[in-house]
């Protein structure tokens, strides 16, 4: 079987999440391919727009909801710009899933702290809904840092969880940077869960049982350092901090060499050995974050 061959997937629905991000709901044209496509939160696929190119993108739907996959695409480069011009009913190619994904089984019974900044919400949404749907996790905290009200990804879901999340064991906390009437409205309605600031401000006053907690981080590269500091200050072990990383992946299967990181003692492929790594692995692999 040719690992570079892609499978037809039809765009069922396109939702505009923000002016920059669209959510694509896809289903494989071939029903067999649809059944065979099994993935874990944190894995990614390669989207193939035939004749234009390929790009890697993380899955933001959860495997607990079958029959479709969802991709949240920010219009940021040549390929994603093209992706944004597609319409419902168009067919694109998908290959994957690739990568290791989050160790969801291992974390069962624990508290999860999901820390996301900006577009980092996309892969963590998969974890969030997987955890909520499976009900196997003690409590889920989602700390989400966003630029402004308009930039909140999956805004309806986030607001819904702000309102009703506690009843299903999920606490959402939101930090915004740019003040606007909508944000102030949110802050008044859901204080102290919503505040002005950055994502690390949401850790204020937070205590957790370090023996029974896992932290999962995804965000822009600058965010990791500060978030990890907050977690380490609270004595969370580096082995309990998971993060998912991004690189210029061309093949997704450890051939093209673009995602190689590390030094002579610790060469790793982000696409194959990752994209989910523990902070411990980041400490022993230079250049990972």
């Amino acid at each position, binding site marked *: 079987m040719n690992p*570079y061959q892609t499978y037809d997937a039809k765009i069922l629905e396109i939702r505009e999440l923000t002016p920059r991000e669209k959510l694509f709901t896809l289903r494989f044209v071939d029903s067999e391919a649809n059944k065979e496509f099994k993935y874990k939160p944190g894995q990614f696929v390669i989207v193939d727009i*035939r004749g234009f190119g390929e790009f890697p993108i993380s899955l933001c739907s959860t495997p607990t909801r079958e029959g479709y996959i969802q991709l949240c695409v920010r219009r940021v480069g040549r390929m994603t710009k093209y992706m944004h011009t597609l319409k419902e009913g168009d067919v694109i190619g998908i290959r994957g899933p690739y990568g290791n994904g989050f160790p969801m089984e291992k974390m069962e019974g624990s508290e999860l702290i999901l820390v996301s900044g900006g577009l980092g919400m996309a892969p963590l949404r998969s974890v969030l809904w997987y955890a909520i749907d499976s009900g196997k996790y003690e409590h889920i905290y989602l700390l989400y840092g966003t630029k402004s009200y308009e930039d909140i990804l999956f805004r309806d879901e986030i607001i819904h969880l702000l309102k009703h999340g506690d009843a299903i064991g999920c606490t959402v906390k939101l930090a915004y940077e740019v003040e606007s009437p909508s944000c102030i409205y949110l802050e008044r309605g859901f204080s102290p869960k919503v505040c002005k600031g950055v994502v690390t401000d949401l850790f204020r006053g937070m205590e957790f049982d370090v023996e029974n907690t896992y932290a999962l981080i995804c965000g822009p590269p600058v965010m990791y350092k500060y978030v990890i500091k907050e977690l380490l200050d609270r004595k969370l072990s580096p082995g309990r901090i998971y993060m998912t990383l991004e*690189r210029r992946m061309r093949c997704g299967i450890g051939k093209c060499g673009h995602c190689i990181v590390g030094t002579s003692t610790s060469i790793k492929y982000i696409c194959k050995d990752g994209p989910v790594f523990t902070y411990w692995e980041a400490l022993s692999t230079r250049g990972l974050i």
Partner: protein
Amino acid sequence: MIILRYVKLPSENFEEFFNSLKQWGEINAPVKQGNIYSFKKVDSLKEVSLDYTRTMLPPKKFFVKPRDELLKLKEGKWEESNGTKPVVLFGVHSCDIHGLQILDKVYLDEPVDIYYKKRRENSIIIGISCMPDEYCFCKSLGTDFAMTGFDLFLHELPDGYLVRVGSVKGHEIVWANEGVFEPISEEDLKYFREFEEKRANSFKRSLNKEGLADMLDLAFESPVWKKYEKICLGCGNCNMVCPTCRCYEVCDLWVNAYEGVRVRRYDSCFMESHGLVAGGHNFRPTRLDRFRHRYYCKSYFDPSAGFNCVGCGRCDEFCPAKIEHVKVLDEVREALK
């Protein structure tokens, strides 16, 4: 299981043997072009330079082509590009055989790259012994002698070649040409040992690989990297000519309004775009990062395949800034003391 067998190919039968290889595939051998050597299609033995030092591009160009068509777009679907013709690589040095084995580790690892696999299966590799020049340092990396990875290996004798058979295919070639080979004599073996000894003593360069990987890991902030950042031109020549460099970039090209191709071509970790992601973030933004990255990648030690560097000396010979691989690593080691 490797079945080793030694036979002798006398000089007078050499041309006959060479011509008989044509039935196994298109013969590609080192040919002198200006002041470099290159693996090219040859028709007769006259064209071949058997005493070559190193070709500019290593034999990887037959398996991962500089411009490689992966898929063809026909009516909105990708079709596999086909057409793998059998090739005989004649006169491959042991460092390059080791280089191919390192590529095997990458491309034949799951999921298997079918293009690479097909080409590897459709190739016959005939090695040849060599004498080191001022750039070679394969002996220090243990890649100066190939135990596997070839079909036949020719070792120079005064009156012909001692031939090591390294594969089933190699046996088949010997069987098909039984008339041209002879059994080896004690004297041939003696000469073979003498040649190997002479060769072992002719290396001018050697890489100190003692604790190399750990040493480099400690030397992440070494001032030597900063020094070489200013010397290196960032041209990526060293990547192109390296037998184990395998980074590639993929792009889609339109042939006409209805048909397109997906092509991969060599990429270089010295290019600024290598670590760039959409949105403008670059994971290796400076030349220092990129320079260091190459040395780290080459000095990585895989327990089952050894170092990623085979000591062929190409990066030194073809570096326009005259940066020497061994010297850089020695300087880094020195600065750490």
